[in-house]
């Protein structure tokens, strides 16, 4: 794993110079991977993440304690759109020149509101969100808004889509994501590294393993810990099983949206088979408790030979059904040219995971910034699909599914030969700060954390779901109301990871 590259902190308050650096780095081919704030005694630290082959670079500057605003990055780099709104929610500073500086995660009046201020000890005991702080956006004659959520039909996570429509087309979509905000970044503060791991596993539960990995990678980089080979294999095993489960979940939702009852049942059953294999391997259906700082808690409770035969059987069943699904014309018709994301926009935004790959843009952390056993295993990275519609997003997922099976077979083979030995390297960290990453089924997850005196003083999880969901605004070119469930399902995101 490559080491942190820190671009020297900018002179205090010189936000413009920091943005110059960020914009220049993006122009040179880095991917803008996130932006967040931290309240420190010296002021509000603004931190940008830039991803490249050498790792994830941190660029930051400090706003003076008295600053109430700063020049917005969004004007120069559109991908910062939601990040700057989140900073405004958390700290009450205003990004000057932001095209829509309204609340995102925590709707409150602009004046006199309580702010969580992550990084600063203490903080408000309760903050009641006030949806009246959010404007309605209906413009133009004959348009009306269909509010969709937060309590929606089926079993869904809470989000509200405001669909603005003259009747059938969707010229504009608005998202309200604040409903299930849990304030997790403040919850991390004061926790030990061990307790923080448990919370990291619950930031975005369907990507438990990827979050645990990104979190532990950050700790291991501070401690310069080398994960033992067998443990690195077990990590990949669970990360890839998690990918299978998530991609099968998307197949279930898409088949369900198209009314294919048998396909829905078949993929639902395969997903259950994966979760049961995970629970047999570690006791938890979501791989909780497997990844620990420095390694893994134990070897799988299933023998490598059994793993291999289970994986083989599952691969046969999934591949056959996937082939049948991709030959069902009535299904493909619903996905083709639905919710397209142009390659230019995908690149500009740095779209993560399958969403980016389906628009010809791939920055897979397993490949570009590999970790654990990935540098040694053969990844067989398939070519990205270029059309960027819901169909290509599903094709990317099937490619990733066969890639995962290929990796799982390698892991099972390697585990059978791995020498017995410790499964954890020493990873006791009391002080330090680092960034860790892992490729979740939804795309890259980042953790930026700081420990002081054995306690977390800041922990910033950035899920792929948060980074990608904002793109949904732009996916409705020519699509109509009945395309909505296909577009949403094709993104395969988790609201828990968005709102935290």
């Amino acid at each position, binding site marked *: 794993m490559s080491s942190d590259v820190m671009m020297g902190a900018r002179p205090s308050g010189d936000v413009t110079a920091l943005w110059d650096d960020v914009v220049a780095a993006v122009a040179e081919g880095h991917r803008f991977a996130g932006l967040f704030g931290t309240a420190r005694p010296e002021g509000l630290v603004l931190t940008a993440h830039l991803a490249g082959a050498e790792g994830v670079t941190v660029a930051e500057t400090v706003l003076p304690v008295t600053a109430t605003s700063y020049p917005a990055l969004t004007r120069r780099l559109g991908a910062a759109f939601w990040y700057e709104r989140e900073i405004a929610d958390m700290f009450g500073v205003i990004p000057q020149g932001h095209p829509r500086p309204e609340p995102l995660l925590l709707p409150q009046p602009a004046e006199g509101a309580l702010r969580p201020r992550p990084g600063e000890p203490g903080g408000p005991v309760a903050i009641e969100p006030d949806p009246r702080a959010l404007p309605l956006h209906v413009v133009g004659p004959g348009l009306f808004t269909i509010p969709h959520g937060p309590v929606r039909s089926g079993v869904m996570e809470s989000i509200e889509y405001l669909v603005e429509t003259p009747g059938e087309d969707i010229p504009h979509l608005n998202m309200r994501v604040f409903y*299930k905000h849990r304030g997790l970044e403040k919850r991390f503060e004061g926790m030990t590294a061990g307790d923080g791991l448990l919370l990291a596993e619950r930031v975005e539960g369907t990507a438990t393993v990827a979050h645990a990995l990104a979190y532990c990678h950050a700790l291991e980089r501070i401690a310069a810990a080398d994960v033992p080979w067998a443990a690195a294999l077990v990590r990949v095993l669970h990360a890839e099983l998690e990918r299978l489960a998530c991609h099968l979940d998307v197949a279930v939702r898409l088949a369900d949206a198209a009314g294919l009852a048998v396909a829905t049942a078949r993929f639902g059953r395969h997903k259950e088979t994966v979760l049961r294999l995970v629970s047999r391997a570690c006791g938890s*259906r979501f791989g909780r408790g497997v990844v620990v700082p420095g390694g893994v808690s134990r070897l799988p409770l299933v023998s490598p030979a059994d793993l291999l035969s289970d994986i083989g059987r599952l691969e046969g069943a999934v591949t056959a059904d996937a082939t049948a699904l991709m030959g069902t014309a009535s299904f493909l018709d619903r996905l083709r040219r639905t919710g397209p994301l142009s390659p230019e926009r995908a690149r500009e935004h740095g779209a993560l995971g399958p969403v980016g790959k389906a628009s010809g843009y791939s920055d897979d952390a397993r490949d570009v910034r590999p970790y654990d056993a990935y540098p040694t295993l053969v990844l067989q990275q398939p070519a990205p699909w270029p059309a960027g519609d819901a169909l290509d997003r599903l094709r990317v997922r099937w490619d990733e599914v066969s890639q995962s099976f290929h990796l799982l077979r390698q892991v099972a083979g390697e585990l059978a030969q791995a020498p017995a030995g410790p499964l954890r390297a020493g990873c006791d960290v009391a002080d330090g700060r680092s960034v860790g990453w892992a490729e979740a089924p939804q795309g890259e997850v980042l953790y930026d954390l700081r420990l002081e005196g054995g306690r977390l003083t800041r922990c910033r999880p950035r899920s792929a779901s948060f980074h990608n969901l904002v793109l949904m605004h732009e996916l409705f070119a020519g699509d109509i109301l009945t395309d909505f469930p296909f577009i949403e399902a094709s993104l395969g995101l988790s609201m828990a990871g968005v709102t935290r």
Partner: protein
Amino acid sequence: MWALRGLRDGVVTTRWPARPDPYAAAVRGPATVLDAYPADAGADGEGLGALCPTGAISRAEGPAGDGGIRLDQGKCVQCGRCVASRPDVFGWSEGSAAAALWRPGLVVPEVAETPERLAELRDGLRAKTAALRRSVHLRHVDAGSDGTEEWEILALLNPVYDMHRLGIFLTASPRHADILLVTGAGARGMAEPLRLTYDAMPAPKIVIAVGTDAVSGGLTSPSYATSGGIGAIVPVDVWLPGSPPAPFSILHALLLAIGRMP
């Protein structure tokens, strides 16, 4: 083509609860207390409590207390720390029967007044749900979950669990709903939508708190953004811990709520 494909593997559906199911019996539930009076409890009592990241472990004190170890399964996030470091005192509960009809019923070993109170609650719930019998409709609300509880509820629709065989269905409209499944720690942003959904349901109505977060807030509480469980927002009839609870445990809680659990 799909019709033939659907017949390919024969019947994959469990017959639980009418017949035993090995996976249902092997479900890992919350941690439990194996030995409430370990020999070293006097010296180490405080240390046992510190094992738990959510403070589920305590000692029964005061006039009614007997000094024994108590574990509140409603707070257990199944991290396994207590089981790993004191396997003589703590172990995993096994099987799907994790739910309780009152909040103190989740404390193990059970408190003295539990059996009486339980019979009373069960009768009350049975009277309330007698009319539902074989046709029950569910509405789900996410009040700040981590996303896994939704997966486990949805699993009940897959052919392995197929809750339709038991006459249990999902409904989109709260007007048709008999049971409200609530997940998540009670995010403040969801308090009003949750209350409105509850109010829109016709009586009799039952609320099931699905998951440790919904029961007690779990690891995500206390927080400025959550209310430490959904009990602060709507009245709860069935408490189901688990992080997340397995589909069989959710099915058990549903059948328990409508008096169909033997």
